């Protein structure tokens, strides 16, 4: 009787989510981070920005493949990289902007870690804006192509290292939907 009562009253305010242990730091990012002490500041900055873009591209490619598990992993990696991102060598105005971007982008990455593919894509859309604004401050070695598909929600943009369109919002459903909006150097 008591047990049944307890069971009934544990109905609550949210559904239990699958919580994954997240003690994995992105290995590459971490090594580069610890090695950064011996590098010049500009090199460290460079590798940190490279890492952010590398993780973002990993996520984008996982979404192109409509692979929920790989996207979640990439989100986890990106979250760790963003948390480790050192803003010290930027101007104070840039630091404020970067801190706001990192705060928002980290949240999106965390959601991508634990969501279904539809939600992952929703957060990826917002994340893309954050990363695009971040690149405007931290720069990029590679030429990036900002691509855009008007079919997704109110229009979905993404960044890619290749000119060729591979759509992360629809995957194989509409692989070639989109166009290059601009090149970012």
């Amino acid at each position, binding site marked *: 009787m*008591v*047990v049944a009562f*307890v069971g009934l*009253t*544990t*109905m*609550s*305010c*949210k*559904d239990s989510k699958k919580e994954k242990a997240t003690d994995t730091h992105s290995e590459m990012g971490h090594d580069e981070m610890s090695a950064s002490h011996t590098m010049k500041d500009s090199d460290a900055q460079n590798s940190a920005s490279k890492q952010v873009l590398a993780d973002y591209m990993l996520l984008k490619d996982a979404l192109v493949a409509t692979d929920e598990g790989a996207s979640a992993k990439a989100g986890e990696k990106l979250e760790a990289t963003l948390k480790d991102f050192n803003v010290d060598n930027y101007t104070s105005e840039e630091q404020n902007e970067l801190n*706001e*971007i990192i*705060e*928002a982008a980290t*949240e*999106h990455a965390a959601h991508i870690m634990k969501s279904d593919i539809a939600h992952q894509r*929703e957060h990826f859309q*917002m994340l893309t804006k*954050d990363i695009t604004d971040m690149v405007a401050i931290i720069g990029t070695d590679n030429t990036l192509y900002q691509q855009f598909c008007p079919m997704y929600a109110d229009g979905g943009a993404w960044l890619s290292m290749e000119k060729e369109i591979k759509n992360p919002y629809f995957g194989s459903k509409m692989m070639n939907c989109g166009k290059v909006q601009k090149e970012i150097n």
Partner: protein
Amino acid sequence: MKIVKIIALVLLVAFVGIQFIPTERNQSDTVPATDFMLVNKVPVAIQKKLQVSCYDCHSNNTQYPWYNRIQPVAWVLEDHIKEGKSELNFSDWKGYSKRRKNSKLKSIISQIKDDEMPLFSYTLLHREAVYSDSEKALVINYIKRIKDSL
């Protein structure tokens, strides 16, 4: 049969025992100036709906249900409220960066639109929190307006 009695007694003692464990309560008497409602001068009808459907887990003031003082319910509620507030806390609205406000508003719209929020487990016991179609349209249009005016 004796074993059943012993087990029942152990459970009863445990149940009584955990009632003495205190939990943190999420309550405040005043609405802070940083609250979503005050910052945006939200119309009364929409205020009411957000209050009933969202504020228990997404603000600094929870309207606790009658059974909230019974353990282990209190723990579970405390846990969920903590998580809800870390995702979105309407009481702290003013302090969010414009970027974050934008992303929160976008998420609010899609969560309500897709019936993801309020959570099913919450609406089971809070029927009034459910969104009717007209309430959905009203709130979503309003949130869109706030988002466009950022």
